[in-house]
């Protein structure tokens, strides 16, 4: 079912490892549903974030979420997660960061992957060891989500 959403990667790995100056996945602290500080120490880039948000080998967020402003350029948004239109009006960057890093902290039953966690997983092939997104990608997506405000 997921074959169109999450294409299998041939050799290149998406799995990433933390770079110097970044908060490593094991060191991230979610406090009251939020991560206050940037994982990279810098603000993300919304334009790059949009690419990572859409990319099927990156966040692939449209697999589950609708973003109305992207419907013209990307067909078939999924419907199993909440629509993200206006999400920046509801949640702070710190809350959005926590949701992307590990949404299971807030909701253990969620289908949503933890995009910046590399432990507590089963049967992960070597090619996918590590986190789904890099710290930079998380920050870039947080920045993109920050642009999704109501009219």
């Amino acid at each position, binding site marked *: *079912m*997921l*074959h*169109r*959403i*999450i294409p*299998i990667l041939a050799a290149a790995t998406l*799995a990433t490892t933390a770079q110097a100056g970044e908060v490593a996945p094991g060191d991230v602290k979610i406090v009251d549903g939020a991560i206050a500080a940037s994982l990279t120490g810098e603000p993300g880039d919304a334009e790059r974030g949009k690419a990572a948000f859409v990319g099927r080998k990156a966040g692939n967020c*449209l*697999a*589950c979420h609708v973003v109305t402003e992207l419907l013209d350029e990307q*067909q*078939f*948004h*999924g*419907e*199993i997660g909440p629509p993200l239109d206006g999400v920046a009006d509801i949640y702070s960057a710190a809350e959005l960061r926590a949701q992307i890093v590990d949404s*299971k902290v807030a909701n253990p039953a969620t*289908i949503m*992957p*933890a995009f910046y966690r590399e432990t*507590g*997983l*089963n*049967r*992960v*092939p070597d090619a*996918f*060891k590590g986190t*789904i997104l890099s710290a930079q990608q998380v920050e870039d997506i947080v920045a993109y989500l920050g642009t999704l405000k109501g009219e």
Partner: protein
Amino acid sequence: MGIPHLKKTVAAAALALACGGYAAAELRDDYVAVEPPNEDHPLTEIISGYEFRTDETRALQADDFENPGYLLLEEAMETWEEVDGAAGKSCASCHDDYEESMAGVGSTYPKVVDRDGEKVFTNIENQINHCRTEHMQADAWKYDKPDMLGMTILVRNVDRGEPVNVAIDGDAAPYFEKGEALYNQRVGQLDMACSNCHQDYYGMYIRADHLSQGQSNGFPTYRFKWSGVGSLHRRFSGCMKNIRAEPFSKGGEEFLALELYLGYRGQGLPVETPSVRN
């Protein structure tokens, strides 16, 4: 969920019985969903994957001359009669007319069988290889190769239209429990269980994919994505790769247990083998 809940009718069951396997009439729109066998069943309605597919896909399944699974079935009809192996036997040597000898097999496997006093949990594919290696003294067939797919289709197709009826108690109970646990076990980098998609969100879309209940009643199936026919265990393997998990081995104990659990999730659905899916 926007899916019509149509009960299997007595008439449809009678029709399926009357028509038997290979020459069965078109699959009917009014038997795609059945009621669960009891209140403890995980589903409130049991819906064939047939219901989640397009009219074009369904039409291909319903046409015995166009459905690609039937090409393999026709070859298997010949293979059934062919002697192979050192014992000088064919399938027919022991089992004679498959329409009679295989009746009730496709709808009840996987199951625990008695092999010379030893209880063995097996599915159709593994049982075929047991026959080949032990009774025919022939080489085992590889999982998902045409010979194996065709013979599995032949056996299951005898029961086409019959309700899936797997046993989950007695000797089968530990395998069922193992299968249920695997179904709900998150795996892979994406950390998903079968249940996340096929229990919690069936009927909804992930991107352009319409999530079904992941029912097994049509396998082996022709799949457009494969441009060919494949086994249930191949489908399991594909799902696991998609969530970036290391698949279990085809024919191995994990997938066998999962196959039994899926059979129960589809208890009462008509066997559709060979089906056509996306």
